[in-house]
């Protein structure tokens, strides 16, 4: 089965089979990453532009490494926010970049849907590295891959997602992906951070408390609190947040005995996760990062028209 999309913007747009294909490809890519010489010629001669309107060293580096391991030429561009206010529109910038003939633009942008805007107008492939509060598909895929590594499947898993769901693109991609794969998702967080209609996002249950969400969970996924976003109205204090919505060794006992703990990083230690949990046996945070490169290689590979050869 080939991958039919020019772009990867949201897991909402992909079928279960397409998501599986990306996960399977990522598993194959992981083999490359364990070699001595971690490079294959698959995308030789292809030009990839990492266009990051929001700073994110982790995601950008992960995409950059992914590109290089496939022998593509990767260029990083971080337009200063000031150039946007100077009057150059996103479309202008993109047209200028197009003149340089890239094959793929990997973009992060603060505005939800900005990628659709570009993808409609540019011939090259667009990969979403995070758009506003919409989606972060590579993160969703790497999270799912990490869960599948641990359980061998995604179907029937109970996944608790805790924190600021309203502003979380990670949560949206995970919800879209996981519910397609047959997992059950339980959301918890202060009601100021649970978006209207969240229960309609698929097989999702909105819980009244964190304990309810993590009770019997296979996976506890903690979301990052973005301090700059909370203003004065969504939360009283971080202290209170961590008391009611932070994961610590005590409440983690409510989850399945060897439940996975996940976090998209960077962690606010002592807020979303106590350090005991973040660095504990159940934490899969580093495996998430490791899987990130493989997943991004798979995404680059498939939008370039790659076909996964039969085993």
């Amino acid at each position: 089965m080939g991958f039919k999309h020019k772009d990867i913007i949201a897991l909402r747009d992909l079928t279960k089979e397409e998501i599986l294909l990306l996960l399977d490809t990522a598993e194959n890519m992981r083999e490359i990453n364990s070699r001595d010489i971690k490079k294959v010629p698959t995308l030789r001669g292809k030009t990839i532009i990492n266009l990051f309107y929001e700073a994110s060293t982790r995601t950008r580096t992960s995409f950059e490494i992914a590109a290089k391991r496939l022998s593509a030429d990767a260029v990083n561009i971080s337009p200063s926010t000031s150039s946007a206010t100077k009057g150059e529109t996103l479309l202008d910038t993109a047209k200028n970049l197009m003149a340089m003939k890239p094959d793929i633009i990997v973009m992060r942008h603060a505005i939800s849907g900005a990628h659709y805007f570009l993808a409609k107008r540019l011939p090259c492939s667009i990969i979403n590295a995070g758009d506003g509060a919409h989606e972060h598909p590579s993160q969703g895929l790497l999270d799912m891959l990490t869960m599948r590594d641990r359980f061998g499947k995604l179907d029937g898993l109970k996944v608790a997602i805790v924190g600021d769901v309203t502003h979380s693109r990670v949560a949206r991609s995970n919800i879209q992906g996981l519910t397609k794969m047959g997992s059950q998702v339980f959301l918890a967080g202060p009601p100021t951070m649970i978006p209207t209609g969240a229960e309609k996002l698929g097989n999702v249950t909105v819980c009244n408390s964190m304990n309810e969400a993590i009770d019997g969970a296979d996976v506890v996924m903690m979301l990052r609190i973005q301090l700059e976003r909370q203003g004065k109205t969504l939360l009283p204090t971080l202290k209170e947040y961590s008391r009611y919505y932070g994961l610590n060794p005590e409440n983690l006992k409510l989850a399945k005995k060897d439940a996975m703990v996940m976090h998209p990083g960077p962690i606010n230690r002592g807020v979303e996760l106590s350090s005991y949990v973040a660095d504990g046996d159940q934490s899969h945070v580093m495996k998430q990062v490791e899987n990130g490169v493989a997943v991004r290689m798979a995404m680059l590979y498939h939008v370039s028209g790659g076909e996964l050869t039969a085993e």
Partner: protein
Amino acid sequence: MSLLIKNGRVIDPLQNIDDTLDILVERGKVKDVAKGLSAPDSAEIIDAKGCYVTPGLVDMHVHLRDPGLEYKEDIVTGTRAAAAGGFTSVACMPNTSPVNDNKTVTSYIVAKAKAEGCVNVFPVGAITKGSKGESLAEMGELKEAGCVAVSDDGHPVANTELMRRALEYAKGMGIMLISHAEEKSLVGEGVMNEGFVATELGLKGIPWAAEDVATARDVYLAEFTNSPLHIAHVSTQGALRIIRNAKARGVRVTCETAPHYFTLTDDAVRGYETNAKMNPPLRSTADQEAVKAALKDGTIDAIATDHAPHHLDEKDIEFNLALNGIIGLETSLPLSLKLVEEKVLTLPALIEKMSVNPSKILGIDRGSLKPGSAADITIIDPKAAWTVSADTLASKSKNSPWLGETMKGAAAYTIVAGKVVYKRG
């Protein structure tokens, strides 16, 4: 110069007429409405067989963008769009540049409309100076210069005490106050209706409570001051419930909605469609149903377009950055005629909401075909099928969510003071 309109289905709610009749127009006024009229040899004759002949449609809420923002629209193109849509009169909101908060701007609009416009233009002045919500505009002078109402449309009057005084003062001047009911602190950085679609798209939501809370405040102030109040572009079931209750206890409140609120829901935003971005935002199916029910039971008095032209660059952009609003003058009639097809309104009731009531609310001498009244007449071809296209829209701007869609029903003729200002085809 006389004009005879023959064989049309004449609908004049004020005279309780719905019958196949002829209309004779002489010297810009309606001379007679009866069966089998004959005209002098020199008369122009229009055969309106199969068409509806109605008092000229009145759109009480448009943005003509003139003066100052003529790159979006001006009085010439805006009134042409109005005529093409079957409107013989429009009331234009004051959020121009400069704001229409003084008689100089009003006089400019009146003079330019008279010289170059093809339909009647009734300016709406500002409630507060610069629409800044700080101090009252000179409403007496605005009225004298030709304003038919005051509104800070686009900006709610945030200060409740000032709103109270504005209602009292406008009453004293005998000028209608039109409220843009929106509680900004609840809107925040919202860009679409708060609900499932916003959640899925990751866009910041605007809660319906932002409209309801502001509507309640203004309705209670109107009740307290016993002043007339008109609420613009109502879009939520809550606001309609408040208005319905207020009307029942005798509060002097009227309201309007726009075709997009009974035709579309926030589902239209999917795909980050900027031509579905407006203020108030497109709401839920339940709100859409409530708007139709309120049209039916009379809670909503008028259909207005909130015609809001924007340049391509202001819409062909990331969703958050796109400006609010859509054009509406040329699509209002077919969209509203659908209400008749769906049995939400009878045809006469529709004409009330598109001509009679807006005229009454603004206190303008329009909305009737009584002999002696201005011969502002719309001849509607209910069967005309046409496709909304950027190439043929008369408005300077093309920001319509219906581009490419087929509409049924159109103005066949638009007649202002006995003169044909638009003829279809």
